[in-house]
Every structure is written in structure tokens, then in C-alpha cells.
């Protein structure tokens, strides 16, 4: 996404530059919408217990769990974690803890 495109969807955009009626004219801009500040509970990845089964990756409704080039999950991207707790619930190995956001 170009700098200009990032600007028209950013929270700083003025009314003269914003798109008509909120129409989104480029793909891939959900990344710019940071949902992490909705969170009141926080998942914590316990790397030692993780078997890399990737159940958490499939159930995450946002993009808070990403996998690297080797197909392994990496730590949470908290910018996109709303704290829904689904990953914590599905983890068969108790490799995800769920704690209060402080």
C-alpha cells in the first residue's frame, strides 16, 4: 500500500482527503486498523509448552497470530489481538495463558 493510501485510511486523515462515504478503494488495509486497544484480557504464549499444532492460528478471528517462513507460529501481534480468548480455549497443550491486561 502506498503512503498516500495509508494516509487516506489513517486516523489523521482530514475530511478533504477521506474517501466518499468510507468506500475502501484498495485491498489489504485491515492491517492499519489496530484492534489491540479493545483488549481487557491478554493471551500469553508459553513457548516451551507449544507443539506448533497451529490450532490457535486457524481460530484467531483477527491476525494476531502469524506464522513465519518455516511454518511455525511466532509470538502474538498484540496490535491485532482483541483478547477474545479463543486461542486460549482451543489450545490442547495449555501453551497459552489468559491473564488480565494491566
Amino acid at each position, binding site marked *: 500500500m502506498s503512503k498516500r493510501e495509508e494516509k487516506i485510511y489513517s*486516523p489523521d*486523515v*482530514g*475530511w*478533504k482527503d*477521506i474517501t*466518499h*462515504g*468510507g*468506500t*475502501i*478503494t484498495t*485491498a489489504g488495509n485491515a492491517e492499519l486498523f489496530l484492534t489491540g486497544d479493545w483488549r481487557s484480557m491478554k493471551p500469553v504464549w508459553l513457548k516451551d509448552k507449544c507443539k506448533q499444532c497451529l490450532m490457535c492460528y486457524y481460530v484467531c478471528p483477527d491476525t494476531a497470530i502469524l506464522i513465519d517462513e518455516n511454518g511455525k507460529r511466532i509470538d502474538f501481534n498484540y496490535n491485532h489481538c482483541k483478547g477474545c480468548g479463543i486461542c486460549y480455549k482451543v489450545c490442547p497443550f495449555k501453551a497459552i495463558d489468559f491473564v488480565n491486561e494491566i
Partner: protein
Amino acid sequence: MAIRERLSGNEAVAYAMKQINPDVVAAFPITPSTEIPQYFSAYVANGEVNTEFIPVESEHSAMSACIGAQAAGGRAMTATSANGLALMWEMLYIASGARLPIVMACVNRALSGPINIHNDHSDSMGARDSGWIQLYSESSQEAYDNMLMAHRIAEHPDVLLPVMVCQDGFITSHAIENIELLEDEKVKEFVGEYKPAHYLLNKENPIAIGPLDHFTHYFEHKRQQAEAMRNAKKVILEVADEFYKLTGRKYGYFEEYKTDDAEVCIVVLNSTAGTAKFVVDKMREEGKKVGLVKPRVFRPFPAPEIAGALARFKAVAVMDKADSFNAAGGPLFTEITSAVLAHGATGPKFINYIYGLGGRDVKADDIEFIYNKLLEIAAPGKVDSIYNYIGVRE
């Protein structure tokens, strides 16, 4: 050469829609606008238009279908009245908020309850803050002309707002009048092709319409929408100017009738202006300096222009065919008086008459009574009552 015809207001609007040949018409029948989709569906059945006609199950669906069609990249039109317009309510705001230049024929009828099928302006006046441009029409000729200009205004890149063309139910919608029509090719050339910058069926540039719009962006979208309504003022005059060159028929924000040396003036919308012109002519013969201002454009509201036009009179009566139930005056009255105050005109005394609710006939005598009241106030007398009713039984 223009075509001379005899058409009712509904026929004139349906004929304009035939000449425009939109991509989609989605409508649900409701008195007194029923004939518009009825005539139009005959054009569809006869193969005279290429339009996809959607006989929806409600007006909410009619407006929803128009929104979908327009967002997809087509030109969508509909017609409705009264409770049909009320049922569209939610979608009216979505059409304007999504900046979709849909065109609707609104055949004005009283809103229930109690149930009534006759003319007043409570339907479109209720939708006055829905973000739609509103054009009002005195006759079937004006309804036809406004329909032809509507897309040009709505689709202008500086505007992109839906337009509602209003006319009086039964009074003009069902009365057959002489009318001058344009040839099909001239309409086609004047209205032109609809070329949206972004649309859903454009596979080269996919878009999303109607996203969740929180406190971070909604205000900017509304500010931008408000600017579009301001821009519409300029575009309305440009389109009217082009239309004048094509037809010789002149349109502005409002029409002034015998106001040059007038001391008192009535402001009234739609067909009642015709009755008022008859009264003005009669009273002028008696040497009384009376005039008329008939607004055509209610949204955007031409506040400084109308304040400027009214500033020179001694007394002005604004006639409203809808009550605001605000204990302060009808919608046209409160808009006009606030415009006059905001733009610094202090001369005229203003009074308001609510008239003709639910299709109650307004007679030449009623209008003459109001002019005589104004002449008394201008004498100079005092205003004993600002917010009044005419034609209601006490």
C-alpha cells in the same frame, strides 16, 4: 423542435424516466405515485427501455435495491409517496451517506396517521435532513424538467448525492396539463452516461462500500457530505443554465413572481404557487403591491439568496403544507426566518400559515386573505400572531 403533449405529472415523470433509460428501477406502488412504476413497467414490457425493473415487496427494499444497483455501478431510480418514503427512512440516510446519486420521484402525500392519501408535504419535509437534494415542482412541466436535471446534479463529482424530485400528489400528479417534451436524443445527450469513479462490479479495481465507521472517521465523512451539499448549490445553477440553453426554460433556487415593486410577499412551494400567481394577478389589477417567491431548491437551502430576496419586503407570509409540531412554525417558515436572521436582514415582518394538510383545498380566497393580512401588517401594523392556520375549522 420540442414535442407538445398533454401529460399528467406522473406521466411526465415516467416519460422522463423512459428517456433517461436507467439501469435499474426498483419500486413498490403507493398512491399517488403508483402510476410512475406502472407506466414505467409498461415501457419495460414493451422493450422501450433496457432497464432491469425490480418489483420489490416494500419501499425499504426498493431503496435498498437502488442502493445496491447504484453501488454496483448502475443508474438507479425509484418513485414513492408518504408512508412509502417513511418506510425508506433508514435507507435514505445510507444512500446519501454512501454518496450514491440515486434519483427518486417523490409524489407528495400526507403521512399517516390518521390515514390519508391526499397531498401535503409532511413526507418530504420529514426527509429534509436525510442528506438528499430536494427539488420542488409547481407543474408537470417542472416535474419533468427537474427529473431531466436531477442526474446531472446528483452525479457531478463535486456532489455525489441522491436527488428527490417532489410534486403535489393528485393536484399535479393526476392533472393533465400541456407540456413541452424534449426529443429522446436530446435527453440522452443532456443526461449523458453515468461513469462512477469507483463501483462494485469493476473487477479491475475492487472496492468495499459501507464499512464500519467509528469516531475516528465518521465525523470527517459527514463533514465531507455537508460540503457536497454546499457544492450542489453551484452545480444546480450550472445545470439549470445548460438546461435553459437547451429548452429556453429558466430555473434557479427559487422563482420570483411580480416581486419588483412588491411590498408584501408570500413564499409557497409546489402547486399552490400556481394558485397564488392567479391571486397576485387579480390583486395587482386592484393596484395592490403583492408578489410571490416559490422555492424550487429546498435542499441545499439557498439561505443567503432567499434572505437577500426577501429583505426588501415589508411583510412576508411563509405557507407550509406540513406542520413541524414544534410549537414554533412549519419547516419552511423556520428555515426561512433563521436564514433571514443569520444573514442580517431585519426589514420584513414574518408570519407563518400552515395550510392544506391532508389535501384540504386551498382556495384563491384563502391566499387573498393572507395577502390582505400582510398589507395590514405592512401599513404599518403589528403582527398579532406569528404561527397560524388557514382552512382549518375552528
